[in-house]
């Protein structure tokens, strides 16, 4: 545990010593700010963050696509791209993996650092619901559920990004790999339109998007929570294995 925290602390220090954390925060605030304004810009709107969470005002497919969750999806792999790829590139992985530290402690430390940044991102957007509370009378349930959903979802994105970062020494490559995996998962529920019965259900269930929609509606389903945590754990496990096989290459 100490090792995990040590690594997380060092990563956080590095994040704030470089522009990347600030750039990501700025990008996230800018995008989500637009979504927030957009969802409230017409008169007599309902005081909610549905536009922020799931995106509704653009209408059609695009409206359902652009939302805080999707912005997180795009930023997640960027946030994690450095974490392991740079260790391999600089060669520092040689000292990290020969220190008396277990591989999963390394992975967890890096993941925790990403999670901390994600937490900061979400906290910084809390002024949207705060404004709603001051000037309107929003339904609290969906707000809390939505934020919980974003945290779970973001954690999954980070785990996938971290896995991608373990695959190569190039940060660009790891962003691309991460995005490919995430976009595949994200849009896989579209495939359910072509099927009936079990496949339809499976495609819906496998997509993190389906689960998130429930959260944004204020529905917290244990199944969804388990889904996110399990998938995140699977990708973290893949990352540990990927580090192990690096030793064998």
């Amino acid at each position, binding site marked *: 545990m100490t090792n995990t925290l040590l690594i997380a602390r*060092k990563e956080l*220090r590095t994040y704030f010593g470089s522009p990347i954390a600030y750039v990501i925060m700025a990008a996230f605030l800018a995008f989500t700010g637009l979504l927030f304004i957009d969802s409230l810009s017409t008169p007599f709107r309902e005081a909610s963050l549905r536009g922020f969470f799931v995106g509704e005002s653009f209408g059609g497919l695009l409206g359902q696509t652009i939302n805080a969750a999707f912005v997180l999806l795009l930023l997640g792999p960027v946030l994690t791209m450095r974490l392991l790829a740079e260790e391999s590139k600089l060669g520092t992985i040689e*000292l*990290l993996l*020969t*220190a008396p530290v277990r591989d999963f402690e390394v992975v967890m430390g890096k993941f925790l650092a990403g999670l901390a940044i994600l937490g900061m991102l979400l906290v910084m957007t809390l002024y949207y619901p705060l404004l709603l509370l001051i000037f309107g009378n929003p339904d609290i349930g969906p707000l809390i559920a939505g934020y919980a959903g974003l945290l779970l979802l973001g954690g999954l994105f980070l785990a996938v990004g971290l896995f991608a970062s373990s695959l190569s020494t190039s940060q660009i490559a790891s962003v691309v790999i991460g995005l490919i995996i995430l976009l595949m998962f994200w849009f896989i529920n579209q495939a359910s339109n072509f099927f009936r019965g079990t496949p339809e259900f499976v495609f819906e269930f496998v997509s993190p998007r389906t689960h998130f929609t429930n959260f944004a509606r204020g529905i917290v389903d244990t199944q969804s929570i388990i889904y996110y945590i399990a998938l995140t754990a699977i990708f973290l496990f893949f990352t540990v294995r990927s580090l192990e096989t690096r030793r064998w290459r």
Partner: protein
Amino acid sequence: MIEVQNLTKYYGDFIAIENVSFEAKRGEVVGFLGPNAAGKTTTMRIITGFMPPSAGTVRVAGYDIQTHSIEARRQVGYLPETTPLYTDISVRDYLDFMGGLRGMAPARRRTRIDYVIQRMRLEEYAHTLIGRLSKGYRQRVGIAQAVLHEPEVLILDEPTIGIDPVQVVETRELIKSLGKEHTVVLSTHILPEVSQICERVVVINEGHIVAVDRPENLSVRLRGTEQVKVEVRGPARDVSARIRRIQGVREVTQRDGASGASVYTLECDPGSNIREELASAIVQQGWGLLGLQAVTMSLEDIFLKLTTHEDEAKPQ
């Protein structure tokens, strides 16, 4: 302290090292010597647990590096060949991080960091980002992190590369003093370094160990003879004849030296130690004895001989 047994490592089909075995005891500095691509770095990466071997075992302080990896790694301080360091963190923060990973308590970390920073002359740069240091200073940071936690075993891959001469001397002293109580394995291409600080040399070539011995023993073992050079003023033919009569002398070659004297090179049986007898014989004849010297083969010669005529050397 370190027992390496029959290590073999394949990179794909390529055999980087084959059947490498050697030992390093506590309080010993072992030099790992070999030309480029001999397999030094590969061996060290296996000893430190960075890569598993294809076959063979390594035990560090009694712990098998594969089955008791964490315990074994706890005993090791390692300086990899390329001195990899994080660039966007200060020297002090970096040492603190590495000390933490090695399980040092905060109080001990602080005192040890102060010590290594002072020892490696890094005071001025303690709060500088590592990415802004010069190559030599980075190397010093690399050595500092390797010795920080006072490990039982130090594995140093070309430790003095890129450091200025003054600091090289100090670094060698540091390694030598560490070698008194700890076990040090260092690889190098700098041959005088080996004779200065290593008690034992492991010579490796094309993935095979070709010799393991004390630096001074290597020359006798390799040549199979001891060499003595003597400079005498006197009739060359008589001198040669007289020298040949001494027990143990196998061969004499004569060459003209300065001011009418000649230099004779004697090949003698190992351990025959003829110098006293030789001197008194020359003096008794009334010839002028200008110089007498046992010639040890330079490490450069040994190295060349071992690595270019592999078949002549017998692995121990």
